[in-house]
């Protein structure tokens, strides 16, 4: 990273850190969603963006994280701050199991989609039928604001936690990208057979990334539970959430450090905006059409996501400046 980009990132960070001082709680709420989806997108990106094994069942890990930390908090009074790591641990074990089945037997492309969807659905159905986890009624989480309980009265603590999580995920992805495993995974994504013929252990590489991805996604689940105070299998294990997770990195650019973040910064406010200004009485549903059209336009213009295009623009911009 050169000096300019460091200055730019520091300025953005400073702006985001100071934002709650001068904005309404509603705006902060939107930013929380932006950070939250950017974080989840980033977790997904670790696996699907870098090794190209596209998972459409990442909600499974959100659900496991949400349920385990919540249940531990409700039954034993264990702070979600600790519970979230236990949840993450469980999720990563399951990720390893799915990964073993998928990668060991070289399940690829659409078949890997199906495998991940199937596991998410199995998770949903299991939790739907387990009465200890509230079954289909779900769990209503009592609101007892305190730091230990991961519950707060205002939006600002959530804002900083979500932002911290997002920055943490960016750093993790950046480290992975620069490390050996990142380089190997890109090689696998581009041509797995060629990479293997050069001695890359693709199985091990994918398993490690799936482990990290599952673990981190589950941490997001704990955040979800303690921000919305209600979890139910159809919501936290649902296909809808899985799609919400992957939409942002796809628009922003898979397999890039800032792709999911850019995607989330574009799409989350876009959804809010279209809903606020086109969802008037009598025109219900119009906002979804407009949102869809904008989405189509973005995908048409930037089929590989926004981040690679931005990067290219930035490079040529720099070149132009240094020339002149």
């Amino acid at each position: 990273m050169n000096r300019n980009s460091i200055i730019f990132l520091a300025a953005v960070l400073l702006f985001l850190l100071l934002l709650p001082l001068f904005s309404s709680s509603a705006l902060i709420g939107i930013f929380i969603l932006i950070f939250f989806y950017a974080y989840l997108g980033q977790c997904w990106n670790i696996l699907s963006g870098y090794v190209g094994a596209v998972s459409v069942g990442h909600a499974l890990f959100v659900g496991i994280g949400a349920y385990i930390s919540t249940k531990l908090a409700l039954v034993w009074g264990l702070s979600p701050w600790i519970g979230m790591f236990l949840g993450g641990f469980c999720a990563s074990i399951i990720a390893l199991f799915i990964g073993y089945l998928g990668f060991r037997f070289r399940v690829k492309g659409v078949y890997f989609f199906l495998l991940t969807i199937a596991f998410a659905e199995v998770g949903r159905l299991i939790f739907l039928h387990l009465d200890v986890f509230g079954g289909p009624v779900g769990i209503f989480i009592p609101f007892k604001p305190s730091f230990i309980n991961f519950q707060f009265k205002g939006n600002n603590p959530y804002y900083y936690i979500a932002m911290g999580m997002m920055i943490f995920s960016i750093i993790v992805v950046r480290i992975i990208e620069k490390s050996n495993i990142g380089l190997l995974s890109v090689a696998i994504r581009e041509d797995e057979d060629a990479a293997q013929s050069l001695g890359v252990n693709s199985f091990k590489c994918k398993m490690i990334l799936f482990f990290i991805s599952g673990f981190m996604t589950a941490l997001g689940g704990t955040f979800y539970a303690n921000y919305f105070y209600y979890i139910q299998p159809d919501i936290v294990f649902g296909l809808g959430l899985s799609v919400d997770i992957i939409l942002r990195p796809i628009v922003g650019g898979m397999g890039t450090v800032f792709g999911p973040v850019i995607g989330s910064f574009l799409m989350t406010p876009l959804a809010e905006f279209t809903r606020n200004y086109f969802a008037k009485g009598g025109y219900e549903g119009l906002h979804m059409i407009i949102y869809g059209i904008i989405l189509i336009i973005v995908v048409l213009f930037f089929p590989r996501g926004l981040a690679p295009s931005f990067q290219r623009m930035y490079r040529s911009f720099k070149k132009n400046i240094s020339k002149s």
Partner: protein
Amino acid sequence: MEKIRKKHSFLNVKEKSFLIVAGTILLGMALVITGFPGITIAAGPKVIKIGSIQPATGMIAEIGQACRRGNLLAVEDINARGGIKSMGGAKLELLLGDSEGKPPIGRSEAERLIKNGSVCLVGAFMSSVTMAIATLAEQRGVPFVIDIAAADPITQQGYKHVFRNFTKSSVFGRCYADYIKDIIAHSKVPIKRAVLMNIDDLFGTVTAKFTLKALKDKNVPIDIVAHITFPHAAKDISTEVAKAKAAKPDILIPIVRIASSRVLLKELYKQKVKLLGIVAPGCPGFYEPEFFKDMRKLANFIMDSPPWINPKSSMFKEVNARYQKKFNKGPMDTNSAYAYEGVMIIADALERAKSTEPDKIVAALRKTNIKEHITLGGPIVFDKNGDNPNAITGMLQNLNGRTRLVLPREFAEVDYVFPTPNLWER
């Protein structure tokens, strides 16, 4: 060298035009989301804003829009009567929010409506969304009147700002058990065996559980001889119905939704299942006007017990007439009626609070006692949890192509017909 540089230089035309468009959109969005600060302040003290969050789009858009219509009509009626008189005739304004049926969106819509100056919230139909908004309301100290949402735990969190006018899930079961007892007591033929058939989705499984529990708790003298679950999207349920038939039930307790109600009824007819009656514990599908259109004579005599409008209330007749005229829709249903009451309760509290301060509104809401209203049950009051203990369900029966209220007797339009004729003899 020059050539190469040109090729790589800056943007191509496509990207440039996109950037211009995207930049404008983003800038506009940023401006609008942060809010032109002037707007909310300029509105003046004569307008009191209420935020309504309903699932106006998404899976249950139809219902969400009915709720929204109810909210809107109530605001219009109150303004036509001179607004909030104790506050110099201040007019109400309804800010519309759309949850799309998703908790994160519901929460973020509620935040927006609070930011835009809502002194009170009303909504939100789905229990999951309602829970997210209830917690938010508690966090922000904004009163929230739940017009519809049934899950019991919402009001068991000790929240001070949350009130619910709708019937709780557990009350659904209790009322149903009472009505079944009434039917058994007044029946000329003995009723001993029942089969419960429910769909396998969230609503189906939960309602089945509550119904079974209530029948047992209330010692209803009836045996559930079979409990059959079937997929909610199934087109063919002949095996399940054959199983039900083999159990030789006196009555059938179906828990279905709009599509599955048709599938079930047709199959019962085809297999000529002998039943004294079909008595549902409050599920959609049996009382909508479309049901009569689709099922014709088969629709008759079916009984169901949802929360319902009070057909004897003169206020309902008035409101209903205005509703039909304004929206050019069929008669007001349960959803729009409860939504109407939600705003009515808020207006009543504002009138007594003489202020838009949250604490004063909450204090006034606590003392709510509305005798004349448009849904079933006694006066609207709130207990210490914020629930309305007088909210109940009614027993309906389809008679001569119309849905009539048959129980409880103090509100009933007609007496019920039981045992009912066989499906194929109607």
